């Protein structure tokens, strides 16, 4: 009897030795005369357990992790090949069980490039339903679901699609924004590596909905594994008739290609991204015109984060109500939240909006990895605010975060323990803005560099009060004088660090006073 093992080929699993674990399993199984088949799945998103090995048994898949190559002989001794020992059934792990996986239902379960696996777990059902619908009805269904953009701004996806559907154009485009530059985020990467047909299906539905026949996936050059898997998936989907001149035999055309960025954070901004595909410097365009009216190569363009696009197959298959029934206030459906940094249980946690920040960090995430107290969490990437534990009752919801002086962005949460110096984090936020600025607006380009210099003075204890006022003024100028959120939102991490953690900005003068 052949024993089936699952070992992820997700980049994060590879970074902690998944390939070496596969070698060790093959070697040990061979030594024991056990016929072994190793399937390279995506990650389930329980990254503290990676490499997470699963063994197929009649009672379901049994999990083992984190597995080091040198652990493998002992695991076989303990009966891993028969599913004994380990962490028990994967699906029963509390971190997975507590989730509502609409978008990540298949990720980590299937072999990413198996069309059979994809179809067996509801794949292409949303697209099949869309083919039977009028474009306006598809758009209406998406609108009804309450889906809002998962790339940061939270704009209603259905309304964006309606604008493109109604826009006159000889051609239209679908662009999937997979630039995912925020530190603390990896959902786009995981999805492309673990369930690539899903993105293809979401984009094809968008194409049918607005009348676009061509799509681009724009992702980062830092994601070579995701690029390779997506590329292979596009080829397989085309060969099987899910892409091409007649999508699933519908007589309607849709095809796509993938483009790699070249190491520029600002190219995640939608208009800079379009410039980049067009072969230009990644500089932000002034709006209007909106991309929905004049986007890629001047044609009406839907540009969505890939988590927005991949929410759509579920919505069409299971119905807008099923999606909208989950959520909180005006934030409907689920959010794939990413727990990262100094956290005991880091990973991907998809859940309906409304869970509090404290539940996420302390209960789901198990507190810090270092075991020290949590001091701050940054939510929403490098442009997101730092939250102190005092704000942990904030529900995960677009409006609640805005109200608390922050944003949820792409759903990344980076946890810091009490060794962090928040003045240094504020300095980093300014520095990052200076490095990544596209250079179009003076407050962003020059202001950020002045910000670094001023925070350096504060850290050195020079004219602290006056320099803090200067930083606050500078942040005001950046907020209101910037064309895009890079310059406009850098004040979030800077001011939140300053206002919630004032002691970290007053260290030097205090030390002097004590002398």
């Amino acid at each position, binding site marked *: 009897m052949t024993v089936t093992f699952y070992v992820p080929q997700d*980049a*994060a699993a*590879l*970074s*902690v030795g998944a390939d070496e674990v596969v070698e060790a399993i093959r070697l040990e199984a061979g030594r024991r005369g056990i016929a072994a088949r190793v399937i390279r799945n995506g990650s389930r998103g329980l*990254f*503290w357990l*990676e490499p997470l090995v699963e063994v197929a048994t009649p009672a379901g898949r049994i999990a083992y992790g984190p597995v080091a190559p040198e652990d493998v002989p002992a695991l076989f001794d303990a009966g891993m090949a028969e599913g004994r020992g380990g962490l028990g059934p994967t699906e029963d792990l509390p971190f997975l069980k507590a989730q509502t996986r609409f978008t990540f239902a298949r990720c980590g379960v299937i072999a990413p490039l198996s069309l059979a696996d994809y179809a067996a777990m509801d794949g292409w059902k949303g697209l099949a339903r869309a083919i039977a619908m009028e474009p306006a009805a598809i758009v209406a269904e998406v609108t009804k679901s309450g889906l809002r953009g998962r790339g940061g701004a939270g704009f209603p996806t259905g309304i964006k699609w309606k604008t493109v559907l109604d826009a006159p154009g000889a051609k239209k485009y679908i662009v999937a924004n997979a630039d*995912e*530059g*925020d*530190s*603390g*985020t*990896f959902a786009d*990467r995981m999805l492309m590596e673990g369930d690539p047909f899903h993105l293809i299906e979401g984009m094809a539905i968008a194409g049918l909905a607005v009348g676009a026949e061509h799509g681009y996936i724009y992702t*980062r*050059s*830092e*994601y*070579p594994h995701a690029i390779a898997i997506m590329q292979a998936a596009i080829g397989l989907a085309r060969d099987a008739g899910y892409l091409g001149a007649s999508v699933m035999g519908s007589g309607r055309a849709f095809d796509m290609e993938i*483009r*790699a*960025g*070249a*190491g*520029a*954070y600002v190219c995640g901004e939608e208009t800079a991204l379009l410039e*980049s*595909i*067009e*072969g*230009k*410097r*990644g*500089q932000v365009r002034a709006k209007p015109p909106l991309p929905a009216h004049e986007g890629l*190569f001047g044609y009406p363009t839907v540009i969505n984060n890939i988590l927005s696009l991949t929410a759509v197959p579920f919505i069409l298959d299971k119905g807008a109500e099923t999606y909208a029934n989950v959520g909180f206030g005006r934030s409907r459906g689920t959010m794939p939240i*990413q*727990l*990262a*940094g*100094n*956290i005991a249980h*880091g*990973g991907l946690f998809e859940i309906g909006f409304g869970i509090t920040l404290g539940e996420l960090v302390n209960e789901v995430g198990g507190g810090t*990895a270092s075991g020290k107290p949590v001091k701050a969490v*940054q939510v929403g990437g*490098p442009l997101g605010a730092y939250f102190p534990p005092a704000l942990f009752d904030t529900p995960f919801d677009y409006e609640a975060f805005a109200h608390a002086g922050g944003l949820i962005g792409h759903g*990344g949460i*980076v*946890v*810091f*323990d009490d060794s*962090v110096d928040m003045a240094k*984090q504020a300095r*980093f936020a300014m520095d*990052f803005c200076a*490095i*990544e600025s596209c250079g179009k607006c003076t407050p962003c380009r020059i202001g950020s560099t002045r910000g670094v210099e001023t925070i350096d003075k504060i850290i050195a204890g020079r004219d602290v009060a006056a320099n803090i006022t200067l930083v606050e003024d500078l942040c005001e100028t950046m907020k209101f004088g910037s064309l895009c959120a890079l310059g406009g939102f850098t004040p979030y991490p800077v001011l939140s660090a300053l206002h919630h953690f004032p002691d970290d900005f007053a260290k030097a003068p205090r030390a002097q006073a004590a002398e």
Partner: protein
Amino acid sequence: MTGKQSGKDANMSNIPRLAEIIAAHAHMAGPTLPTLHAIQAEFGHIPAEAIQMIADSENRSRAEIHGVVTFYHDFREAPAGRHVVKVCRAEACQAMGGEAVAARVAARLGLDFGATSADGGVTLENVYCLGLCATAPSALIDDRLCGRLTEARVEKLLAGIER
């Protein structure tokens, strides 16, 4: 080893191959970035003579193409070292002691970030996020992703590439 020459002077021997790469991408909509990626993948950098050739092929000015090459952090105007070490400096890695790891890498290689060793052996660079934020801190050593780095593990990994 073609294409490892200095990026400064036009190197006539590169031209036929550059022309092939440029022609192979000319049918694309927005061919510039894919062309530059393909050139860098083969030559290790963007040879100076490529700029004018791309400009001619796309009917754009040389200044425009030069502007594109310099805008993106990925594109190099001179070859990198034989090994490239990229250490993540972003927030999730910072939260897990990434700055100490980065300092250890720099000290071990005797290089500042952004520099290439005199013998052309190693280039050390910053990267802002590899998407490995729940297995931080992380680095990319040539094509190898490295997560959960510790200073001790850095020593081992770097010993491996220097031989």
